[in-house]
């Protein structure tokens, strides 16, 4: 199934793009998708400890199971205000 990943803030520069699609097996979790992202975008792999992950408009933990056509957002700590 296809899921879409979008990057925010300086993660865009590190990834070299705004968005990327992944073809994953049903049952794939957020954590497993992060492994795939790290493999495709090595510059992001070292920042995994401080990376925030949302599916749609909600944060999700590593064990969250993805669905077809999910939009996953990957970004550094937020800095509003």
């Amino acid at each position, binding site marked *: 199934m296809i899921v879409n990943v979008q990057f925010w803030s300086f993660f865009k520069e590190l990834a070299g793009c705004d968005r990327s699609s992944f073809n994953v097996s049903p049952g794939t979790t957020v954590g497993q998708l992060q492994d795939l992202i790290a493999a495709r975008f090595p510059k992001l792999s070292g920042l995994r400890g401080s990376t925030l992950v949302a599916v749609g408009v909600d944060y999700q933990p590593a064990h969250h199971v993805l669905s077809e056509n999910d939009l996953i957002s990957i970004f550094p700590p937020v800095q*509003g205000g």
Partner: protein
Amino acid sequence: MRRQLSIGSELIDEAVLIARRDASHGIGAALCFSGLVRGSEDSVQIGGIEYEAFSEMATHQFHRLFDELERRWPMIESVRLVHRVGWVPVGESSLWLEVLSPHRAESFAAGQWLIDEMKRVVPIWKRIQKG
């Protein structure tokens, strides 16, 4: 609780926002906070900050925080919050918040809590621009 949220690139005009305040006769405390862009970051002179927001998620997360604020401080009558995005020059406001409540203590507590939580979960980022 009334809520008003605005995330946009317009100048935050605090005087206009205050002139539009709509407080019932139950309100004894009006707390406003304005966050201004400072002229230096980490001792380096800057000209301003570029704010980027994931607007759809930011809106959703702000409303989750408003829900939680209402659970924690049910007496609070109104929260208005404006976050500016795009280029904000030094000296201008990037954030404006107003809390209206019967008593002072909960207006301060809720205002501080909301800003702390915003800085933890609302997807908005800064890009410093050298002056």
